[in-house]
């Protein structure tokens, strides 16, 4: 991707991007389930639209930390094209993503927008591009990108097909995101219950040993954590182990 190197990331129109839930975007990028789902989507779109003499390359880009990232693709060529566009920080797919509407570039050579990117993509053999955003109801932002080596590579029927795909995929994806978010919240809560149990025990132990109140006990533990750069719950665990020799404190937590 030499063409994209050294290009500063920039907003083509300086428009501020909407703030989105960061953790959800992270899920889209890191969950193997979601990545697999998006790859399937890209492959399906590509194989459904490809005809002899007009092979379609398809990829999915997700916004993360306000920057686009190519997460899934039907093949290496599509991934390379998505990364090329993301490297420039501008292009039809990113415009579609920002506007939230389908965008068709029937003839890349005649395109005046996205100057440097359009020329670079043309050098990679792209002649027409179709970009369809996935409506994730503000939970994250994603766009399905399709590239064709032919001018006017996408018919009106193709566009309708891809839009129908994208709508179905988005509703499934919203559900996956919601479930992932809930299961992450549950895991966090389980970890918190466990951590709180250990810390509460240690606070009680410090109170008994030092004949002090809870607040003072907390500040003794926090100071130890800060000065030794050890997590508070590790300090608490050390305190308990030193008193009773217990290595493992468990807190039962279930739905």
């Amino acid at each position: 991707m030499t063409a994209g190197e050294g290009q500063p990331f920039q907003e083509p129109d300086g428009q501020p991007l909407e703030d989105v839930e960061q953790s959800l975007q992270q899920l889209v990028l890191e969950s193997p389930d979601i990545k697999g789902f998006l790859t399937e989507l890209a492959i399906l779109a590509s194989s459904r639209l490809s005809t002899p003499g007009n092979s379609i390359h398809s990829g999915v880009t997700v916004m993360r930390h306000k920057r686009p990232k190519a997460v899934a693709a039907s093949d290496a060529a599509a991934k390379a094209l998505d990364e090329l566009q993301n490297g420039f920080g501008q292009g039809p797919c990113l415009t579609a993503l920002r506007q939230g509407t389908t965008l068709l570039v029937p003839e890349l050579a005649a395109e005046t927008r996205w100057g440097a990117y359009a020329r670079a993509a043309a050098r990679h053999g792209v002649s027409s591009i179709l970009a369809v955003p996935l409506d994730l109801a503000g939970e994250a932002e994603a766009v399905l990108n399709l590239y064709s080596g032919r001018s006017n590579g996408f018919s009106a029927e193709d566009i309708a097909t891809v839009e129908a795909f994208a709508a179905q995929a988005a509703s499934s994806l919203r559900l996956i995101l919601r479930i992932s978010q809930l299961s992450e919240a549950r895991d966090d809560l389980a970890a918190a219950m466990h951590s709180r149990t250990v810390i509460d025990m240690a606070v009680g132990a410090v109170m008994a040993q030092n004949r002090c109140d809870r607040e003072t006990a907390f500040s003794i533990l926090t100071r130890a954590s800060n000065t030794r750069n050890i997590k508070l719950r590790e300090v608490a665990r050390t305190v308990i182990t030193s008193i009773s020799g217990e290595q493992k404190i468990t807190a039962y937590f279930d739905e």
Partner: protein
Amino acid sequence: MNADWTGGPDKLLEADQQRKDVARRFRNTQVPMIKLWTYYYGLGGDADEMSLDAYLNEALHLPAAQVGLIATAMRELSEGED
């Protein structure tokens, strides 16, 4: 949950400044509010989520002990990143 400011105006000024710093640090992290609250609760925090939210929006003061735990939670969470 609001702290009792018997320490005089200097103490309140100090708490304001500290809260401002904590709020700024929170805005600069990518950590969602619910994640921070859950972690802070796991450290033994007593404030509810709405009070934490209000504190980080500089709309409420919390007792010094809670402020210490919020700061600890943010530090430990950001250590977990990257």
